[in-house]
């Protein structure tokens, strides 16, 4: 049988209480019996000497010893009415004796107790009248035994009563006190069953509530961890799904055109066109794999930090992209000053700025304006790329840094995008400990901000 903690405490407490309480009661009862017996002895001794003295004086009044017998009888009948029995002996001869049967005359002078006829007697025997007689005195003290028994009965019933009351009170108190433990257990069971949003109650300020608080903190932590893992897992799954899709489309084309070339009876012109498709689709696969490798490379944190001029990098990016921007009919300009030194990986940071700017250019239709800006805010350098293009919805903003996410699938792909650009930007920013944020108004434009902390 398995006992609950509360039941164990209950049994132990009750057992200890009963043991000490009852032994205390019995000690008390016994002590009072003993005290009563002692005082009865004292009284008996006094009474004895009173009797002996009175008898001696009375004997002096009588001139003849033959009258002593008569006196003894008088004393005997007088005291027997008071529960005191006497015997007078002269040498070996009994002069008078009304002692209850079974009482013998003790040798010593001290008082002793004897039992006879189911009653208890205090017996004192001493020589009196200058050793002429021996007076034996027996007093019925059965009432002491009776008192002791009565006291015992009272004490035992009191003990039983008290124990019963204690048992009930203790049970209720323990049940109340162990409630938090019970609740904590329910919560633990819930969590063990996988219900991670279960929590324990934290009332009061004893160890239980502290434990509950700690427990809740732990549960909170686990739940958070699980949620973030789940989130991460979902993102990864989505990325894998997307990757499969991204690979599948060019693979279908490549295979299809190869089969077509192999099996169909076609003209030279068609042949050339098919081969071009095969080449461009292979190119797309290559770009995807390169981007994925870049990302893996940055994830491994293989970056080389040097001191670089941010202004210069921005001007460089503008120069590099000016041709493609002009082709798209977009005005690209820089809003930065030279001599703004920052610790970063030069190649990656350039890639980051270029990627953001390319995205901004793509987001603009003809007549758009893209501005790459840079400013110092507190202890950080904020590089921003602002466009007045198509913008994004808040739903799209949530996903844009996920690999293969595209806000406009067909357009982006036809322009040669892999859907990995912003995912790469996020990795580069993360590797630098920088923050990449997007602010967008659907239909009005987007602003991307990378915030580097100056350490």
């Amino acid at each position, binding site marked *: 049988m398995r006992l609950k903690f509360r039941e164990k405490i209950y049994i132990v407490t009750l057992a200890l209480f009963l043991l000490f309480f009852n032994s205390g009661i019995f000690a008390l009862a016994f002590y009072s019996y003993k005290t009563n017996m002692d005082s009865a002895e004292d009284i008996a001794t006094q009474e004895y000497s009173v009797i002996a003295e009175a008898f001696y004086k009375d004997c002096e009044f009588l001139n003849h010893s033959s009258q002593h017998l008569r006196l003894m009888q008088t004393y005997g009948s007088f005291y027997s009415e008071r529960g005191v029995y006497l015997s007078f002996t002269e040498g070996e001869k009994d002069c008078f004796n009304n002692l209850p049967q079974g009482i013998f005359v003790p040798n010593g002078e001290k008082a002793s107790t004897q039992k006879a006829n189911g009653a208890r007697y205090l017996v004192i025997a001493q020589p009196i009248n200058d050793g002429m007689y021996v007076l034996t005195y027996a007093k019925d003290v059965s009432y002491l035994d009776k008192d002791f028994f009565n006291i015992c009965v009272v004490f035992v019933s009191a003990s039983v009563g008290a124990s019963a009351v204690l048992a009930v009170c203790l049970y209720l108190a323990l049940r109340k006190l162990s409630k938090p433990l019970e609740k904590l257990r329910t919560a633990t069971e819930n969590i063990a069953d996988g219900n991670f949003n279960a929590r324990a109650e934290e009332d009061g300020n004893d160890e239980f509530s502290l434990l509950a608080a700690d427990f809740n903190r732990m549960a909170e932590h686990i739940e958070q961890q699980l949620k973030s893992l789940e989130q991460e897992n979902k993102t990864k799954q989505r990325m894998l799904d997307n990757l499969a899709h991204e690979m599948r489309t060019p693979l279908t084309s490549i295979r299809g055109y190869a089969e077509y070339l192999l099996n169909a009876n076609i003209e030279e012109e068609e042949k050339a066109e098919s081969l071009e498709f095969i080449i461009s689709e292979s190119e797309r696969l290559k770009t995807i794999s390169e981007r994925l490798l870049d990302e893996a490379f940055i994830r491994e944190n293989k970056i080389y930090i040097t001191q670089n001029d941010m202004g210069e990098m921005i001007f460089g990016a503008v120069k590099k992209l000016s041709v493609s921007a002009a082709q798209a009919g977009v005005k690209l300009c820089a809003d930065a000053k030279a001599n703004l030194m920052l610790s970063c990986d030069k190649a990656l940071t350039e890639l980051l700025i270029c990627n953001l700017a390319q995205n901004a250019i793509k987001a603009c239709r003809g007549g758009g304006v893209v501005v790459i800006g840079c400013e110092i805010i507190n202890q950080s350098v904020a590089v921003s790329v602002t466009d007045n293009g198509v913008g994004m919805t808040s739903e799209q903003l949530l996903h844009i840094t996920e690999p293969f996410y595209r806000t406009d699938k*067909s357009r982006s792909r036809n322009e040669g995008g892999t859907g990995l650009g912003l995912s790469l930007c996020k990795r580069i920013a993360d590797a630098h400990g920088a923050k990449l944020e997007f602010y967008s108004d659907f239909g009005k434009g987007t602003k991307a901000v990378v915030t580097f902390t100056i350490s």
Partner: protein
Amino acid sequence: MAKILIAEDERPIRNLIMRNLELVGHTCVGAGDGLTAARIIESESFDLMIFDIMLPEMSGFELIELSGNTPVIFVTAKERLSDRLKGLSLGADDYIVKPFEIQELLLRVKAVLRRTKREDQKLAFDDILIDFSARKVYRNEEEVILTPKEYGLLETLVTNRNIALSRDKLLMLVWGYDYEGDSRTIDVHIRQIRAKLGLKDRLKTLYKTGYRFEL
């Protein structure tokens, strides 16, 4: 032959599907996004429509609502069961997952056309007439007796006309997946067909590749 609409935003794939279908004698119309496809559906009628699911502007799931009684095949990279079930429950006649083999696409197109009775029942060329429903071949209006395997081989080659089929592929398509015979069996049957129907010029042997029926 059938008139087929292809809605697929990937130009290379759209192009590939159209070319292969045209090769076997179908007429094709292509659309690069959902909206264009919807406009074409409104103005023209087709025997079959092939939709990609993830199309810009309007998805394949939306386009199928406009298809009416025309059979629909989905061609998509979405391979999850839930997507397949959704596609088929919306009334698609078939579902092809990328990457696919062109042969597979052609066979499925043929199967759907046959099921929906939109396939030509007869094909005539030179002095030959093939009656697909009766599985009979006539030359100069006289029936030519072909063995079942010979007829099967001829039908497969004619259906995939202008496309080379390897001996292994022909074995698989005509004899079945579990046939373990020599691929030279094909050569014997081809010789018989050529002799019976005088198809020396149309039924070409391709070096190292297989056979192609040209029309």
